[in-house]
């Protein structure tokens, strides 16, 4: 499993995403540039220029037509994937920490940062999937987080709920239509920020990563914690693999402490755990800074990670990975034949 190194960014990566077909990887970094890459060989497809500050987040719609980005220049932008044309810019008072399309691509949410005088919010826009059409100026929904600011958020199946992870380690469930807070529960340790929230393909459950060194698998319906994955390092990201029942966790010593710690001690490894049995299966080394984001190919054939070191590492799984089965899984597979 020799990785492909994408070295087009000059500063730390903040998020990487595959499009639904898995042939393109989008990456955003603190160097203000959005990159698009062919996932199979790591060739650069193009870049999207326009942002005036560090980028925090990127997402692509289900048809790979539209791309949404958000960053420290207090704007959320919509691009045409094909041409790189900037379609729409929404301005805010604070930076955008997270953007995400709904499953049907007709809604887009953005998480805004909290700053003196401005509470953290989650804004939702209706999106017209036609790149030629005008997009709405005004948000369809605005959720104000007056307790603890949201750090990550996403749409559940059928956009029924909006699930948000908070700075204090809790997870909230909002009504997707009204924005009403339905439920809030402390899933991670107190004041241990939820750093990532990624959905299972059918959006009935999700995985959260936290600074409390653990990742949790949670149902969208009841926010019930199904599984917990415990590591020995603060986590920045957690992703689920399709085909195989694994999760990939990424993190490492906080970026500000990195200069004082060796790569070994920083634990800059992608860790594979079995999703159901919660046991560690393996680790992939390579980054020399913390992993800021891990994304899995939608067809489950590989994964990529973006690091504080400025590199994206794209991995394609080899045969041994697919052959690996626990004894009980093998039994199950044979029973289903």
């Amino acid at each position: 499993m020799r990785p492909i190194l994408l070295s087009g960014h000059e500063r730390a990566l903040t998020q990487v995403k595959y499009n639904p077909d898995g042939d393109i990887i989008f990456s955003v970094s603190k160097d203000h540039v959005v990159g698009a890459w062919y996932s199979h060989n790591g060739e650069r497809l193009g870049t999207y220029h326009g942002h005036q500050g560090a980028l925090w987040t990127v997402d692509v719609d289900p048809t790979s037509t539209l791309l949404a980005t958000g960053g420290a220049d207090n704007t959320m932008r919509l691009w045409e994937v094909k041409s790189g044309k900037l379609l729409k810019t929404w301005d805010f008072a604070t930076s955008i920490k997270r953007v995400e399309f709904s499953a049907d691509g007709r809604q887009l949410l953005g998480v805004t940062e909290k700053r003196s005088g401005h509470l953290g919010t989650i804004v939702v826009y209706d999106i017209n999937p036609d790149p030629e059409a005008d997009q709405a100026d005004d948000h369809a929904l605005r959720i104000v987080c007056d307790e603890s600011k949201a750090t990550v958020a996403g749409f559940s199946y059928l956009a029924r709920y909006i699930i948000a992870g908070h700075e204090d380690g809790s997870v909230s469930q909002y009504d997707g239509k009204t924005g009403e807070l339905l439920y809030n529960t402390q899933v991670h340790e107190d004041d241990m920020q939820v750093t990532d929230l990624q959905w299972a393909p059918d959006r009935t459950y999700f995985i959260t990563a936290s600074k409390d060194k653990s990742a949790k698998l949670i149902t969208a319906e009841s926010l019930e914690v199904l599984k917990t994955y415990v590591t020995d390092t603060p986590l920045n990201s957690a992703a689920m693999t399709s085909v195989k029942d694994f999760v990939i966790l990424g993190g490492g010593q906080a970026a500000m402490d990195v200069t004082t710690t060796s790569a070994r001690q920083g634990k800059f490894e992608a860790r594979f755990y079995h999703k159901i049995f919660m046991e560690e299966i393996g680790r992939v080394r390579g980054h020399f800074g913390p992993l800021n984001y891990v994304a899995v190919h939608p067809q489950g054939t590989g994964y990529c990670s973006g690091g504080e070191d400025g590199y994206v590492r794209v991995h394609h799984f080899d045969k041994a990975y697919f052959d690996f089965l626990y004894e009980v899984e093998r039994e199950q597979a044979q029973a289903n034949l």
Partner: protein
Amino acid sequence: MAPSYENLPMEEDDFDESQIDFTDLEEQFQERLDESLDAFVVIDGLPKVPEENRPKLSKFVLRKLNSVGKVKEDGLFMPLSDEGQTEGYAFVEYNSPAEALAAVKQLHGSPLDKRHTMQVNKLTDIDRYGREGRIKEEYTAPEIPPFEQKEHLRSWLGDSEARDQMVWYRGEKVGVFWNEREEPPESVVDRENWTESFVQWSPQGTYLISMHAQGVQLWGGKAWSRQKRFAHPGVNLVDFSPSEKYFTTWSHRALQVDENHPVPGMSIEEDGKNYVIWDLATGKPLRSFATIDVPSTIDAEGQPVKKKMQWPTFKWSSDDKYVARMTQGQSISVYELPRMNLLDKTSIKIEGVMDFEWAPATPKRDGIKTYEQLFCYWTPELGSNPAKVGLMTIPSKEIVRTRNLFNVSDAKLHWQSEAAYVCVKVDRHSKSKKSLATNLEIFRVREKGVPVEVVDSIKDTVINFAWEPKGNRFVLITAGEIPAQGAAVPPKTSVSFFCPEKTKGGAPGNFRHVRTVDKKNSNAIYWSPKGRFVVVATLQSQQSFDLDFWDLSFDKPKDEKEESEKDLTANLQLMSTAEHYGVTDIEWDPTGRYVTTVASAFRHHMENGYHLYDFKGTLLREEHIDRFKQLIWRPRPPTLLSKEEQTEIRKNLRNYSKVFDEQDLAKKNTANRQVVEARREMLREWLEWRESMIEMLQEEGAEIELNGGKILSNEDADGRVEEIEEIVEEVIEETEEVIG
């Protein structure tokens, strides 16, 4: 429950302070208002003499009293009885309370003549303890509590699987565990705040020692209850005698024991002392000592050199009969246990003595009928006298052997565990004092006349040396060049193995060099307690964390034996090499089956935890535990089997091991079955839940979600499939040729 030192079970609820009767405490600790009486002492035990002899007696007594302070003029009052005789007691007023105190301390119990012993007490004490009501008029015999069955202190040795125990100290928790090889260790007991600084086992494993600000506590038995406690405020270190009868506690702060600072079990004699030697059975101090200040030396730059304290300061002889302390450069004081009196009432004067070491076993010397204890010492060059190494027997104080040495800069004494040899590692400097080399002077203690063999083939300085326990081979590590001040990279080291030659009679012959391994970073040697296997490791290093597992009696096929090593009693083989990042401590279990390596939070905070290896260096388990500080194996007492019985067992090892193999297999199978069962259950639950979710989505009509997030385009829905042909061309090799 957190066992605090006082172990006071306090009910939190409805605690009313005013309800407590403090009168007993008030009486005991009442302020002594009349300070002026502090200068008075009462003397008892004087002879009863008629009035005319009173001045003579007064004069005699005064001479004694004035030896520690100044008695006030007319300060001695000896009352007369009705018969005109003195009463056998006297009242004395000193000039100051301090002098009175000194008199009590130094004169109490001192003999006047053969029949009379002086008892000196403070007047205030007489008043305090002898007041009416404090002492009952009638004698009542002290109540002897009925015999109570105590817990079996060695129950752990009866484990059916012969497992070993170890203590872990991590975070604030101390726990004792059974070692389970590959399986996680089985907890025996785990308590919060069991100790305040560290834990320690007694040398035979009977007790676990916990350290507290107020003193030390000993724990043991099946229930891990407190067996004993010893009050020594501010205690820093503890050292046990080999058979666990006595032990020493030390605190760098001198003890303060007086009326205002009472310490349970201690008397005024312990005031100002640093070391206390205890009798474990009675729980009482035997004797206490103050620290001897080592004369501080000044280095080349005029900075005072901080002398490292030698620990243990009081060294025990192997039979627990003697304990000795050295006054550096002057003498060695040997005390007899349990009375703790100085042997023959004098210290043994050895001019210039730098270090001494007791033989770790009673040496059985050839041609000597009564075996005595033995210690080895060395003195540096003094004027024109050469440096010397000597062996002295105790109690006869006979010097068995001395040897003169020249150009000595330092020496270290290494006894073999059975006291068969003592190796003196002598660091020698050249005439110019620029380069250093090391000699090994090996004394064959058991042989007649104690012959000395010199190994001087070593060019470099030896930084570490270790005998094989119960064997006669040794390993040493040499360092190439002493690193320049502040050098970031330590010098490369070499590891050398030595063994005796084979001789016809089977007795160990001369020591011969077996092999040297160059370009290592190793600096530590850990022999298996049973000998044969040794771990050579790199500790306290920033870059290197190697662990080399060596076998010195490897069974090589005959024809592969190297010609040069044929007549040696060793067959060296590197079994395995491992690495443990940040390793700080290494320890063998008492049976020599396992080795643990620890990255202790006492030294650094990187990847604290431990590794468990078997004797041949196979990693069995590794665990990272936050703030892991100590892992110590519980020692085992010496075996009760005779030598013959042991050989018998070794002969039939195969029969025994068969049984153990079966047990292991059965255990493994049940454990595996449980794990598999648990996984099967987890998988079943998961699949069920997924099924219910998919059903729910189908009911809701969530097509995109069911399709894994991809939107079905119209074309796909119509069944028209777009075919994409992908041609992959792989260039395997390219060659260019010029044709024609």
